[in-house]
């Protein structure tokens, strides 16, 4: 199963992620 998030944000939104990384509920995905 998969969850897909699609969202609008200011252009300076930055992801704090690496492709393939393991993640858990509540961990930050990105910030402004």
């Amino acid at each position, binding site marked *: *199963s*998969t*969850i*897909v*998030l*699609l*969202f*609008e*944000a*200011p*252009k300076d*939104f930055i*992801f*704090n*992620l*690496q*492709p*393939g*990384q*393991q*993640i*858990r*509920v*509540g*961990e*930050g*995905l*990105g*910030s*402004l």
Partner: protein
Amino acid sequence: SLTAGRGFLPRPWPLPFLFVTGGGYLGYQHYKRRSQEDDEAPPSLATPTQVALYHSFPTRLLSRAWGRLNGVELPTWLRKPIYSLYIWTFGVNMQEAAVEDLHHYRNLSEFFRRRLKPAARPLCASSCLISPADGRILHFGRVKNSEVEQVKGVTYSLENFLGPQNSRSKNSSLSFRDLLLSCPDNDLFHVVVYLAPGDYHCFHSPTEWKVELRRHFPGTLMSVNPGVARWVKELFCLNERVVLTGQWQHGFFSLTAVGATNVGSIRVYFDQELQTNSPCYSKGSFHDHSYVAVGDQVLKTTNEGGVVLQKGEAVGEFNLG
């Protein structure tokens, strides 16, 4: 002599033969893809015939049968060995489960839906957006030209994924992506989280937002593991999914739960009407349910039209079959 010997020979069964050969073929393709993945080679996409073959498999029927099987109550003595095998195979961490005693879970479906201890998932306070699920980040980035990448180099159409928007007819000169944006200075972003079989399978609200619409797309239930996502273009548009759309502090926001063969049904806690992986729905259609005022009827859970979700709040879960 063939006619005479017919009584002795086993009858050919075309359907099981098709399943076995087809399954073997897909297994081989999966093995081939894994090898390519390891080599970090560019994805090799399935041909339309291969996709049509996979698409024609009765994956929804198989999924429901799998769900029925896993809903059978297990005798107490059998629970520990069965769940231990599952834990060992998929690397489940039972120390974070709310109930660690394996005898407590009556069947594999209950075990799959296990809850976590209250403090097991602290919420990141410094981030405006948190992970909605446990899993692996398959892909993330900006949406360009109304095409979204399910994995690097394999795209799907945003319009096929979300379905038509009401605002589309009002201003047809704008692209689908631009129609979703409330402010031209903003951009559209996406994140894909893949949940492996051993992961905690509830999903939570990634931010504070208001859900206005639920759109249910009954579809096929192909595997969504990263290998298949690299192989089948538009996989997320073909599979059964539930799209929740609404608004957050920066404008448009959506969360989509995509089902798979083994995990075919999706539950949303605040929506009792939603029924997924049901034989009454046909592939290719979609069904809307608005959470904003409908005529004179306003849902109790709404606040100024829409279901308000807090950051980290439990939203729903995936179920076996």
